[in-house]
């Protein structure tokens, strides 16, 4: 890697001050498993002048339940989330998502904050030495449109002129399904509203704002959640499609549903139509099947990713049924 300055931030204020000073010229490093890959491959037109390490900030890695809420610091490790007994039993989709992310050793390094802030995956965007200076790098166009788009968005582009890259996080859809809130250094936002695409950003975070924690409300009585991931390999791989579902049932019928797909669009995709189908129904194969079909009703697949529509539909169905088993 080329040289850069390195700063350890010892408080959120310090981190924010540094970020304010450097703006786009610096990047925040938590687990490092995304940013270092980008730097090693020099994928962006400009190389970071500085890295701001936030692992040196105390108190950001706790996991606890209090006040009717699960509270996780932004630096909580994915492995710790996956193994946490409370999360496994009450916030199952999150534990499953964290446990299926990447590989065991990466889960000892990757943080929940970093996981939801991670950059898009697209093999044009991420090609070495900025080989494709695309829309998301303030360049000319989206190369996936006419290229090999087998892993790209099935719900259309995200900026004018294209960008069919996908958001690769496994935990993000689980947080959306569990109705989490993202706490930053300046505000608290619904998880669903946290993700936004502008040419060089994937979240609503300002240049001098960092995620400090995540809060997940205790699911209402009668709720269960599940997470499924589809990838070619059973380990290491980013998702091709994943799906997190939280359902609440009373007297055998669904009273509330939150269904979120990811890796199918540039931000997590909340399958509202699927939720509408399932509410008020008894959870059976037929209902789940219908919900799956509804989830992809608005799909606009590209030339090479039609299969992802079938997979998304199936995952929604199976995740719903997985909730039914609990």
């Amino acid at each position, binding site marked *: *890697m*080329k*040289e*850069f*300055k*390195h*700063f*350890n931030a*010892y*408080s959120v*204020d*310090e981190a924010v*001050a*540094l970020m304010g*000073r450097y703006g786009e010229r610096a990047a925040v*490093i938590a687990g*490092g*498993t995304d940013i*270092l*890959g980008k730097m*090693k*491959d020099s994928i962006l037109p400009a190389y970071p002048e500085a*890295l701001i*390490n936030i*692992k040196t900030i105390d108190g950001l890695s706790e996991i606890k339940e209090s006040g009717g809420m699960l509270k996780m610091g932004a630096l909580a490790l994915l*492995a710790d989330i996956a193994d946490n007994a409370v999360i496994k039993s009450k916030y199952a989709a999150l534990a499953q998502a964290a446990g299926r992310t*990447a*590989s*065991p*050793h*990466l889960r*000892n*390094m990757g943080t929940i904050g970093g996981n939801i802030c991670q950059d898009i995956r697209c093999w044009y965007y991420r090609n070495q030495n900025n080989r494709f200076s695309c829309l998301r790098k303030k360049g000319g166009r989206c190369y996936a449109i006419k290229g090999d788009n087998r892993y790209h968005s099935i719900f259309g582009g995200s900026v004018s002129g294209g960008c069919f890259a996908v958001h690769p996080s496994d935990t993000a859809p689980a947080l959306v399904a569990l109705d989490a809130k993202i706490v930053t250094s300046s505000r608290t936002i619904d998880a669903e509203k946290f993700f936004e695409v502008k040419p060089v950003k994937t979240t609503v975070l300002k240049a001098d704002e960092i995620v400090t924690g995540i809060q997940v409300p205790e699911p209402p009585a009668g709720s269960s959640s599940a997470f499924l991931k589809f990838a070619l390999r*059973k*380990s*290491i791989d980013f998702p091709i499609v994943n799906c997190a579902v939280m359902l609440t049932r009373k007297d055998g019928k669904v009273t509330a549903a939150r269904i979120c797909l990811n890796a199918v669009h540039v931000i997590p995709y909340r399958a509202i139509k699927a939720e509408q189908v399932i509410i008020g129904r008894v959870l059976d194969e037929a209902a789940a099947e219908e919900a799956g079909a509804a989830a992809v009703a608005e799909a606009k697949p590209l030339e090479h990713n039609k299969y992802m529509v079938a997979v998304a539909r199936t995952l929604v169905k199976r995740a719903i049924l997985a909730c039914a088993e609990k």
Partner: protein
Amino acid sequence: MSKETKNYVCPYCGESHDTQDGLKSHVFKSHKGRGLPTAEGRIKLMINKAEHSFLVEPSWTLYYLIHDILGLTGSKQFCDRGACSSCTMIVDGKPVLSCMMLAIECDGKTVETVEGIAADGHPLIEAYVNNHAMQCGYCTPGFVVASKALLDRNQDPTEEEIVEALAGNLCRCSTYPQHPIAVREAAEKMKAGGVK
């Protein structure tokens, strides 16, 4: 006589101020509680139970520090992108990928590499040899370290637990079936011999 502008530069974050007072209040405001700054890049860490002190560049990964600078070449670089686990080291008791960690962020940490594990006579080494859990051998140190970390936290792993723990370790020669056998053999030996 022309007026000289002096720059007072914050040693913690590099921000510059026109006056010393300005610098002081910035330091109190933004970096309260910090000790005196050490030379940038000076780190101390324990590697295989020995104390080390290095002056590192920010861009150095932990792998580069240990493999290229220190010269412990047991850990290997297969992908250099966190996708293969050949560079696995145990840092503060957890198996992590050293190619995706910055050395400058390892100040005060404890690191175990395959050489240390072998020097301690861990039963995994013999178990690996006896069971042909290697062919070309390039990925083997990564597996040995990951297996050792597993046995540290779980003295009696099932085959499924072993596979889960090694699921991120790639082997192109595909020695996979042999690793659960070797790890079980080491676990049995440790149980029988009271070896820790």
